[in-house]
């Protein structure tokens, strides 16, 4: 039943267009990502909580790249950060991303493009454990552009992501 409603909601959301943010479902599984700050859609108090399924339900992006932390080419699958912000009706200048070990980094909203960064949940077709820098890792397609191979971008490539805060 809930599934049907969420599917209907998702379709409705799609049909309505991206400008309209749709009401969020509540997470069923473990919360992997908590978004707070200047957002219009919430599902738990002031924040929006996602479980892995909710993230996987959103439009997925896949790309292949080498990274400075891994060996050889890796295939990342995830949802673009822009999508999440749109979904939540985020209006703000900066996204503060924080990790499980409390590492946090600021990502200016204007640096977020429809294709990068990606909040990845799968590495080479499999979920990432905490030990493998999972469950969520903000990655950029480093190989595709020299602009993605700077220290700033590397600093924004936060792994073990669990919180997003939208601030001004």
């Amino acid at each position, binding site marked *: 039943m809930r599934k049907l409603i969420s599917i209907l909601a998702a379709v409705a959301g799609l049909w309505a267009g991206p400008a309209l943010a749709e009401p969020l479902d509540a997470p069923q599984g473990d919360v992997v990502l908590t978004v707070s700050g200047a957002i219009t859609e919430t599902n738990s108090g002031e924040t929006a909580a996602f479980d892995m399924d909710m993230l996987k339900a959103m439009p997925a992006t896949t790309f292949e790249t080498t990274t400075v932390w891994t060996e050889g080419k890796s295939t990342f699958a995830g949802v673009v950060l822009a999508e999440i912000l749109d979904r939540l009706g985020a209006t703000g200048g900066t996204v503060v991303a924080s990790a499980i070990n409390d*590492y946090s980094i600021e990502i200016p909203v204007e640096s977020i493009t429809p294709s990068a960064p990606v909040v990845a949940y799968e590495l080479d077709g499999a979920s990432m454990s905490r030990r493998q820098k999972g469950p969520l890792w903000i990655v950029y397609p480093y190989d595709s552009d020299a602009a993605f191979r700077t220290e700033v971008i590397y600093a924004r490539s936060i792994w*073990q992501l669990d919180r997003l805060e939208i601030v001004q």
Partner: protein
Amino acid sequence: MWLIGFGMSAIFILTLSLSSEVISDLERQRSASSDNVQWTLTQVEVEHLSLLNALEHHMHAPEGPLPIAADLDEVRRQFDIFYSRVDTLRSSRLFDDLRQDPEFAEPLEAVTGFLERTVPRIDGPDAELEDGIVSIWEDARTIRGDVRDLAVGGLSHFARTADARRDDTARTLAHLAALSAGLLLALALVSLYLLYVNNVTRRRGDALGRANHRMNTILSTSLDGVIVTDAEGRVLEFNPAAETIFKYSLEEARGRTIGKLIVPPDMRDADGVDMRRMRWGGEQPIVGRGRIQLEAMRATGELFPAELALQSAHDGDEEIVIGFVRDISKRKANEAELISARDRALAGEKAKADFLAVMSHEIRTPLNGLLGNLSLLKNARPTQEQTRFIHNMEVSGQVLLNHVDTVLDISRFEAGKLSVKRETADLGALMQEIVDGQSGNAASRGNVIEWQWVGPARPWVTTDTQRLRQILLNLVGNAIKFTENGRVSLEVEVAEPGDDGETPVYEFRVIDTGIGIAEEHLERVFEDFHTRDASLGRSAGGTGLGLGIARRFAKAMGGDIGVESTPGEGSVFWVRLPLKEGTATARTRRDTRTPGPVEGLELLVVEDNPINLEVIRNMLKIDGHRVTEARDGKSGVEAAMARRFDAILMDISMPVMDGPTATRHIREGGGPSSDVPILAVSANVLPDAVEGFREAGMNAFLGKPINLSALRQALAAVTGAEGGAAAETEEAGETQLASIRANLGEAAFAGLAAQLVEEGDALIPRLARPGRTEAALNELAAECHKFAGSAAMFGALEMRDVLVEFETAAKAGEVDALATLAHRAKGVWSRARERLTRPG
């Protein structure tokens, strides 16, 4: 120029390569290959401590605020975080280099070992984890040092790397700087070079400008007109001089065809003038052919002579013609004036020459009549008294002739027409002849006359015998004139032997023991018309011109004349002449062994003057020649065509047909007498005239007034016979003897003659025994010389000749010839002796 291009491209390529190197360097720099490794290394320590913290928290927690399970979750969480961090160290390529370093690899190994050991417990159930917490905590504590080592080791490694990277960057930047500097330097050099080139160009431009200015100045200041036209003759340039000459201004002239401007209208062809062909009224193209003269026209229409030189040249692609024009009206006028002046001068010269010729002829012709007749008269067996009269007349006639000759000589000298002949002469013979000729004159004043060589005898020379004779005769005559009862000696000496190819200089001295000349007169004796005593006039030279002529002759012969004198003691007149050596010829006229005169020839005489004709006729009749007469050239030719003669005597100036013309007719006529010797008989003795006679075909020349001996000689010469010499000598001797007899008077003559005979009788036998030594021969020669002189004075000329021959042979050491000569001398002496002792 290409050097610059080459250099520039080389630098450019270098720049490109270095830049690409720098760019790729910078590119590398841009893509950070290192995420902040320092962060990772420090975080590993932090996260290890967090793990320891979580473990300790749980260990001491039983009383704590949190429930056990949450603690365990926290432990698990911290473990996972720590694990992922170390995993990064293990697998990230950032730490590839570091992992090679054992100082890093060993601690990493240890830490990894802890993680591997602990994973199963972390992943196990809570109760097992709980139990093993303390040992995990101890294990974690143990690796604390390793964790620190990781951090420290990594840090120093990355510090080095960063430094190296900085060095790289620095080096790259340095390269860039060097490259830039190099480029700047190259640019600077190129700039300098360009500056230099610019300078050079500017200077060249300046020089060009100056040259151009100079050219313009030259053209504008040139006095010659310079006209430049194109190939069709349209005027391009017209310099100020051209403007002045042609009276067109530059503006008027420019663009117009040159032909229409300056060529006289009658010389143009129909469509003006084509400068390229340059047919300005002439046939020849005149471009590049040097200067030509033609008539040009000024703007006013005035024609004037101009000198023009044309050259074609290329001005870029076009052909231009450059003309240099000079107005030569003035020069032409000067030339014309010079030509007319020259013509006048030539005419004047011609008039003078004609005058000389006429003088020569007109005066000598009657003299010929006079002296010729006298000559005949002498052969008509005159009485002694008559002989004396004849002699006097002859003397006067000779004087007159000499005067005429003197005047002619002076005129010729002043007219520059004094020619000096070159013929072989025997000085010895000449001196002898002079002494002989003057011996009578000398004897009449009681003087002794003699001559000798001073030093070695070199008798054979090349000179003008006539002139030399005239000079010497003049001097000797003077010497005799101013000496009484004294001595006149002639000396001839080779003053300068003339080694090394120089012409020998001979000095002739005429020494007298006369009254001498005062010092103040010495300078003036050679002046014209200077005489000591105006009343004198006995012999030649009384006009006072004699020495003047002698000096002129001496100078004309390349020598000099002078005098030294002591009043009361005597004078020495000297003549120095350079005389080239002559070749000794066989003795002709003095050879007494030759046969008699030529006789009995068939002769044609062509002469218009009846007196002259009679003279010649009578002279010829003496020697038994048969004479045919013709009164003019035409009848002479006719006579010559009629029969063959042995010789023809042709007068020169005759009416109807003159001598040379008649000669030519005879020669070309092919008649019987066409190849017969023709003698020119003329009063015109100028050498030019004589040359003309030879060209006409005449063989010999006989000057008027004719004397018998000359006639005989000439006939003998042309008819090839040697005769006449002996007879001539004899005749001369007779004259001499008679003359001296007359002068001395019978008594004196007899005494002197007896003395001479005595001397001769003594000398002659000694000739047969000359001796052999040089001293003996020379002594004998000297005695012969002395006696020869005396003999000659008494007319024993043949004797004299023989003695002279003997003397010469003795001096030359020709001992063999002496015997023959001695024998001959004996015969001659007997004849001479007989004549001397014959009553008068």
